[in-house]
């Protein structure tokens, strides 16, 4: 299900906020169709790494590539803006707090990008919105404003909004962390469905069960470096590194409390 050409290629990523080094020379390759989970304690840099992929948090050093296109290319400001807006259309992102546009209906949330950036007609955009919202099981909520949706429904609309741009890769930044426990499953189901469709996905998560069930590879980050990575059963059942073991033991203890 994966081939060997890196689809997303992060090379020597380095990021500092002032004197604080958040990412310390991280390299990571993700193949087309691969599903990668990034786990680790808070402050380990996993969200920063994810947000570097679409340059939401620009790196201070290193390169990010999507296929044959460098995301964080060095360009004069104006050209760079043009370039990055183009690149971002290929990278869907889902946030912990959904960030749906509250002044727009579910439909309008989904059609905004395609209409403005791909010049879709009203009719085509509506068809796309119906398609994408049906996919996340919310066709019956298409004309609802976000305030009338539950957290899980909001996150599914946010996923539909990202998918409407037909991205090559989807980034999930703790997509279920802000949800009530009973709403987590409906979002997980949508993500599983995407996985079955061979979407390339990079998922920052605290949900080890989901990571184990869905992902091809798990990356454990701590303190700005990748400590250990491997297939989920290896990382979760039999990790080599002491820090990975400690983290998982602590996490499990917290989860069972």
């Amino acid at each position, binding site marked *: 299900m994966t081939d060997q050409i890196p689809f997303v290629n992060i090379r020597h990523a380095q990021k500092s906020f002032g004197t604080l080094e958040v990412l310390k020379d991280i390299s990571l390759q993700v193949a087309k169709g691969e599903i990668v989970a990034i786990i680790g304690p808070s402050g380990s840099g996993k969200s920063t790494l994810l947000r570097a992929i679409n340059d939401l948090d620009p790196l201070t050093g290193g390169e990010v590539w999507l296929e044959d296109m460098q995301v964080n290319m060095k360009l004069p400001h104006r050209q760079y803006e043009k370039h990055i807006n183009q690149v971002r259309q290929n990278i869907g992102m889902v946030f912990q707090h959904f960030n749906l546009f509250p002044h727009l209906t579910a439909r309008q949330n989904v059609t905004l990008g395609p209409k*403005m950036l791909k010049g879709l007609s009203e009719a085509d955009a509506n068809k796309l919105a119906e398609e994408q919202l049906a996919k996340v099981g919310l066709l019956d909520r298409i004309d609802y404003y976000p305030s009338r949706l539950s957290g899980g429904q909001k996150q599914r609309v946010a996923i539909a909004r990202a998918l409407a741009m037909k991205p090559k890769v989807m980034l999930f930044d703790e997509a279920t962390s802000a949800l009530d426990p009973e709403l987590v499953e409906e979002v997980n189901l949508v993500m599983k469905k995407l996985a079955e469709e061979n979407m390339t996905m990079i998922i920052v998560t605290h949900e080890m069960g989901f990571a184990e069930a869905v992902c091809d590879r798990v990356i454990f980050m701590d303190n700005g470096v990748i400590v250990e990575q491997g297939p989920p059963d290896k990382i979760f059942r039999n990790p080599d590194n002491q820090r990975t073991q400690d983290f998982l033991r602590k996490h499990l203890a917290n989860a069972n409390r």
Partner: protein
Amino acid sequence: MSLDFTVIPPFIGVILMGALWTIAITAASAVLSFFGGIVFAVVALYAPWVIRLPFRAFAWLFMGTPLLLQLFLIYFGLVQIGIDLPAFAAGVIGLGLHFAVYNSELIQTSILAVDKGQMEAARTIGLSRSQALRKVVIPQAVRDVIPPIGNNMIALLKDSALVSVIGVSELTLSAQLAIGRTYRPFEFYVLAAVVYYIINLGMEAVQRRIERRIKAAR
């Protein structure tokens, strides 16, 4: 001399005409101050300094000096540099820009209060910063700021009386005209006050309607 409100009826037409002009100048200035306020807010927050700094000076001029003086300057002063505006236009520009500066302060605060995740989500889809501002951030900021702007618009209605001094025959000037003919200041000033109050009630009704509409879309 006792009060005698029977002097009013012959001047009802004049006073109503004045009321219409007051409504017209208030409405036109309100529209200018609203859209001007948005433009000024965006300039104040996002324009490069070569535009932003002169704008600050301009905003200071409008906030730090009397509106009456600004109206004189626009109507009488600009003639000297070849800009001869009709009184109505001068009044709308003066009132409109004056209140645009005040609205802009409200809108700036409101823009900054929009969750930064909104800008991030919009940029992530691929929208440029200005597209994201236009379609995502500013509509939300404006929606939140409608009630306080409504209060500014009521102040605008009351300050519209100032354009009487540059000869726009709005409500106050119409009352003065009637007083000049009848020497009955009390009766006509009270009448004008009542009419201002009625217009005020009308504006509040419109405002409530807009706020209800916004609420419905949440």
